């Protein structure tokens, strides 16, 4: 790879890494399915790299990436998931607009989560993190804790609600809402 190409490549990687979490959230916002969202994110990252030559460095990378992701999501949904239930184009568009507008607030919420997790009792914190660990099966996690899957789901529901209220409260104090 030439020095110029390498610099170009490094520049892209830095920008992508910086905005990856926001991009992931944006895609999940308009496509709730984790599997579909992962594929769309992959497609988006490839397109972003392929089109990076056309990107004007004076522009906002995140906005540009969101625009590409939005297009890729709509294309993906039209091409591949006609037979499955997904949000329609009108709602996807509205959610995409809202997600872009909420971007800063969401970033602040992601940062606030660490503190909110610390506030949880240790057993609950461990449980919710275990539930979100890749490869975890809920029935096995529940059995390991001597619970039914249903009671585990209910507990997770309450913990997520508690965490959401906590991050919203913290961010509201910082003036994002």
């Amino acid at each position, binding site marked *: *790879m030439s020095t110029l*190409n390498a610099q170009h*490549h490094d520049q*892209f*990687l830095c920008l*992508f*890494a910086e905005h*990856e*979490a926001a991009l*992931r*959230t944006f895609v*999940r*916002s308009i496509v*709730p*399915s*984790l599997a579909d969202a992962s594929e769309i*994110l*992959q497609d988006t*990252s490839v397109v972003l*790299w*392929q089109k990076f030559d056309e990107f004007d460095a004076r522009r906002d990378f995140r906005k540009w990436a969101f625009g590409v992701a939005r297009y890729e999501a709509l294309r993906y949904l039209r091409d591949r998931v006609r037979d499955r*239930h997904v*949000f*329609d184009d*009108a*709602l996807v568009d*509205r*959610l995409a607009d*809202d*997600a872009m507008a*909420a971007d800063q607030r*969401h970033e602040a*919420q*992601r940062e606030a*989560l*660490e503190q909110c*997790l610390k506030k949880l009792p240790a057993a609950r914190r461990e449980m*919710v*993190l*275990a*539930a*979100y*660990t*890749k490869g975890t099966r809920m029935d096995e996690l529940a059995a390991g804790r001597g619970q039914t899957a249903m009671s585990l789901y209910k507990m997770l*529901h309450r913990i*997520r*609600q508690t*965490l*959401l209220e906590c*991050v*919203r409260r913290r961010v509201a104090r910082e003036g994002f809402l």
Partner: protein
Amino acid sequence: MCAAQGRAGGFPMKEHWHEQIQRCVSGDSTQEEAAALQQALKDDAELRALYLDYVNLDVALGVAAEAAAITETGIGKIAMHPPPSAWPILHHWRWLAAAAACAALIVILPRHRVSSGARQDFDATISSTQNAIARLSFEPASSLPEWMSPTASMLQSPETRK
């Protein structure tokens, strides 16, 4: 439809939507539930904000769980930032090695008379070694293993990937 059931069922709407959104985000919604949520999301901006915040929380919890799993499996002890409380344990041998090296130098130095140029070189070497030891002790490696990073495949340019 879920929305109609919520209104007629007597339980608080807000609580109902917390549950429906979480089911949707987890991929557990039935078609009817998803359709009801879709209609409600179209009509209600506040509900859309709640939905988007839940999605954001879901993504952030996934990242937090991944980081916690890495730390637990030991990869994190090398690749991730260990908690400060773990540093003395993780790098204990390095401090012992550094102390031994310093002690050896203290013993050796008075026995040798060195020129001022050589002395400067020697000082520079000591300083660089101390810096290296400090880096070894406190700088965690910054990169995740390649298999964990969705961007790892992009480390090669499109031309070289073909």
